[in-house]
Each structure stands twice: as C-alpha cells, then as structure tokens.
C-alpha cells in the first residue's frame, strides 16, 4: 500500500452555466477512519468527487491529496483508488480485460488484476463479459478497479447502491478493514442509514454547501419525551411555566431536555392528568433530515 494522505478540499466551487452545483466547500478527510460524504440526491456529491479526481474542472478552490492535485500525482491509481457511481464499462469487455486495460495505462503490476478480482469475490466471473453482469457484480468490479493500485486513499461513490443485504454486510466490514489498515476512506451516500454502521466521521452537504462536518456520534439528536393530556393547552402552559422546552405537535407535545420522570412530576404538580408519556429516540436519521431537508439550514 502507498502512503495514506489526507484529502483537502478548500473553497471548492462549481457552476454549470447558471446553476451553482457546489459553493465554497471546505473539509478535510483523515487517514485511518471511514468518512461518510452525505447529502440528498442532487446536493453536489458526485460533482465534488469528480472535481477531486480532475474529471470536472472546478470554477474555484482546490482539492488535493496531501497537497497535490490528482493530475499532479506521479502514480495516480496507486495513490488514490476510486469507484464512481456511473457504470463505466464497455459491455463487450470481460472484467479481467477491463482491469488490465487501465492497469496497463497506470503502470500497475499485472498480477494485481487477479488479486483484486479475488478480493471482491469476482474470481469465478473474471472472463465473462461485463454486459451480462448484475448491478451488484458491477459494483464489485468498480470496487476492484478502486483497489487495483493498492492505494492509500479510497474514494467510493454510492458503493452500497444495488448490493443485496449480504453484499451490504460485506462492504461494511470491508470498509472498516480498509480504514483499519490506515487508509483514507471517503464514502458517499444519499442515505445515512446505509453507511451509519461503517462510518466514524461525516461530511454533510445540502444544495452544494457544507452543513455538517464532524463525528457521527455528535450528530445524534438525543431523546425527547412525547406527552399528551385531555387538557393539552393546560399541560402545555404548565410545562412551560415549569421551565421545560416544549414543542406542540399535531397529536400532542414534545419535550426536549427533560426526562420522562421530570415531565410526569411537572404534570402531577399542576394537577393535570396525562393520557400519554413516551420517550422517543430521535436518532441520526432525523438529525440528518433536519440538516438537509426542508427544515434544515438554507
């Protein structure tokens, strides 16, 4: 494996005509951990990754691997491996030939082709034309391409897409293993739930702008208490006067920052009967949707 480097994105911007796809994006991806690159479809993830790899020219800013732009790397495929979302295969070419064509161009040892095909579980299908591959097999071949140069940095665009549950389980442990070997791993997804079991750090973008950059644990929204009473208005004013943080919902009230016992005690003190008292774990997915969804920051 080549040395792992950081991925440094600084003030990266891209506009396609009038459309601003990515705006002033800055973040750093560190070696040894799996970093999730999240955002809804159309948020600018793929455009950002393609700018990283020199396939799309940025309108402004820079993206470097340990200080060097992709096209300045002496041995690009041996430094950064990538699996991009689009299935970029000639359907009439076999998997072995596919890898060997690009391995030759990048000056990668021939024996790596069979090694990576075995690593992703395609060894038995190496001589079959890619046109007959299932979506899951194409994803595995994309991953084999990423691993071809045994790179210290891996950039994977939606690698979970199209995999069956067994494949998803496999890729999760595989990502962990790669990061455990000290590699820098950046994985994009539009669904937090797809990657939350395998990532440590997350970078979240929405409408081309950074909305979160930090640990996965810190993203968790915590627990809130759902509470209701036949006298909902009375309960709400009682809780507020007791100093609780109350949000009126359609079917009751939500209290954050207080335990269920506290909320029950407040109601008892005010003499208001309760019809419901339930703790609810809001979870990562909700926090993610709050960040990127309609209610999120602009």
């Amino acid at each position: 494996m080549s040395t792992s480097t950081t991925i440094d994105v600084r003030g990266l911007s891209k506009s396609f005509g009038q459309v601003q796809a990515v705006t002033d994006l800055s973040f750093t991806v560190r070696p040894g951990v799996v970093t999730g690159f999240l955002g809804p479809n159309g948020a600018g993830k793929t455009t950002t990754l393609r700018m990283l790899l020199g396939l799309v020219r940025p309108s402004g800013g820079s993206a470097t691997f340990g200080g060097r732009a992709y096209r300045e790397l002496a041995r690009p495929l041996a430094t950064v491996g990538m699996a991009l979302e689009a299935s970029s295969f000639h359907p009439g070419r076999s998997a072995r030939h596919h890898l060997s064509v690009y391995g030759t161009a990048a000056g990668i040892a021939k024996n790596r082709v069979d090694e990576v095909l075995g690593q992703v579980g395609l060894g038995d299908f190496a001589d079959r034309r890619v046109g007959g591959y299932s979506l899951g097999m194409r994803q595995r071949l994309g991953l084999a391409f990423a691993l071809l140069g045994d790179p210290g940095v891996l950039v994977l665009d939606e690698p979970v897409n199209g995999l069956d549950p067994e494949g998803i389980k496999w890729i999760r442990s595989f990502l962990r293993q790669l990061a455990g070997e000290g590699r820098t791993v950046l994985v994009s997804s539009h669904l937090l739930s797809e990657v939350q079991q395998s990532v440590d750090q997350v970078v979240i973008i929405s409408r081309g702008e950074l909305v979160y950059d930090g640990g996965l644990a810190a993203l968790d929204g915590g627990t809130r208490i759902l509470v209701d009473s036949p006298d909902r208005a009375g309960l709400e004013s009682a809780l507020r006067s007791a100093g609780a943080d109350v949000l009126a919902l359609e079917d009751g009230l939500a209290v954050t920052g207080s335990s269920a016992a506290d909320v029950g005690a407040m109601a008892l003190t005010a003499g208001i009967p309760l019809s419901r008292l339930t703790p609810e774990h809001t979870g990562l997915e909700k926090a993610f949707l709050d960040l990127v969804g309609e209610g999120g920051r602009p």
Partner: protein
Amino acid sequence: MFLRAVRSEFQKILTVRMWWVLLIVLVGYVAFTSGLLAGVFGGLGDQLASSGGNAPDITDAALPPIIYSIASSIGYVFPVLFGTLATTSEFRHQTLTPTFLAQPHRGTVLGAKLVTLAVFGALYGIAALVASVGLGASILSATGHSTALGDSDTWALLARVVLAMAIWAIIGVGLGALIPSQVAAIVIVLAFTQFLEPILRLMTSLADWAAGIGQYLPGAASDALVGSSIFTSMTAAASGAQSLEWWQGGLVLFGMAIVAAGLGYLTSWRKDVT
C-alpha cells in the same frame, strides 16, 4: 508513460470484438468488388472494346493499379468507421472516466489513440490489399492480362494504399472526438463518404473552376495519394476532374486528420467528464 498509454489503447481494441468484425466485412467487400472488376474488365473488356461499345477506356496497363487500389478507393470507409467507433464508444460507455483516472493527462491519451488507430488502419490496409491483389491478380493472370506485380511502381502504390488507410483511421479518431454521439458520427461518416462526396466529386469535375476545389475533397486527396482509383478513372475520361500530386494528396489528407483531432481535443476531449 506515452508507451503505456499506447499499450492500453491496443488492449482496448483487442479485447472487444469490433476490430475483427469490421475487418471481415472490409476484406469481404474489397474481395468481392476487386474480383468483380477484374472479371469484368479482364474477361469481358477485350470483347467489349473490339465490339466498339461504350466500355470505359481503360488500357491494359492501367487495369492492375485500378483493381489493386480498390483496397483504399472503396475500403477507406472502414478505417474511418473504426477510428470513429473506437473514440465515440469511450463517450457512449462512459469509459473516459476510468481512462482519465488511469492517465489524467488527456492529451497523452488522445495521442496514444491516434498512434494506435494509425497502426490498425495500416493493418486494415494490408488486409484489404491481400484481398484486392490476391483475388485481382489471380483473375488477371487467369484471363491472360499482366498483373504488374513485377513492377516497382505497383509496390509503391501498394505502400501508399497502406499509408492512406492509416491516415483515414486518424481522421476517424478526430471525427469521433468532434462528434461524440456515436449514432450521429456513423450517420455523418456514411452519408458523406458514400453519398455526398461522390456527388460533389462528380459535380466539381464538370466545370473547370470547380475542379480545382474538387481535388481537395478528402476522397479525391486520398485517391491522389494512392495514385489510382476506380473513381478517378471512371470520371476522368469523360470530364475535367483534376488531381493533386501524390504527396500533395497525402499532405491534404494528413492535414485534415490533424485538424479534426485538434478540434476534437479542444472541444469534447477537454470537457468535464460527468
């Protein structure tokens, strides 16, 4: 690094079926046409001439070059298509992504593709000559005509056929980069070479002022480079078509190839790959 890129381009071609499918069609087409011509002019030409009919005025000495050069005068569309398909398939199957990831210097990739396709164009030329000379010379000698294979001029002509076919393949790569849509590129190549250009060559040969322009059409330049063509001998007798010197024809054709490749590089090749 350039050599690695060239080897990669060779692998790209040899690992899919297109190269030999096109080659078989080329050889079959050239063999059929040159065999037919050798049979008609070799076997029946004498009778037609002696009967005083309207047979084209082709002397015995002009016959072998015309038949041998069928390889390029009719077969040139195959290296063009080959170059065009090899380039447009990169856009169509989005294989420019892995290509530019493995070799981020895009000019190097295009240069390697031009060199590779030129080699395959030359190989196509040799294969087409095997068909046209092999069948043509057999029929000529069977019907009692000279094959002219002992003449060094004939072998120089064969070499120029190979050169022309190589340049046509480069033109194909340039066209493919200029017109990334595979369907559009094929339609334009076929419509121009099989329909538009023959008409233009015929029409420009009818007036003196136009003939000077007509000789710069790519097919006419290619025929000038080779030095013989069924097309020029059919029209030249009846009209005023002009022809460039062989080296001028070669330069015109090569110039077109370089301009097409250069424009292709400046337009689609440098674009964002999304």
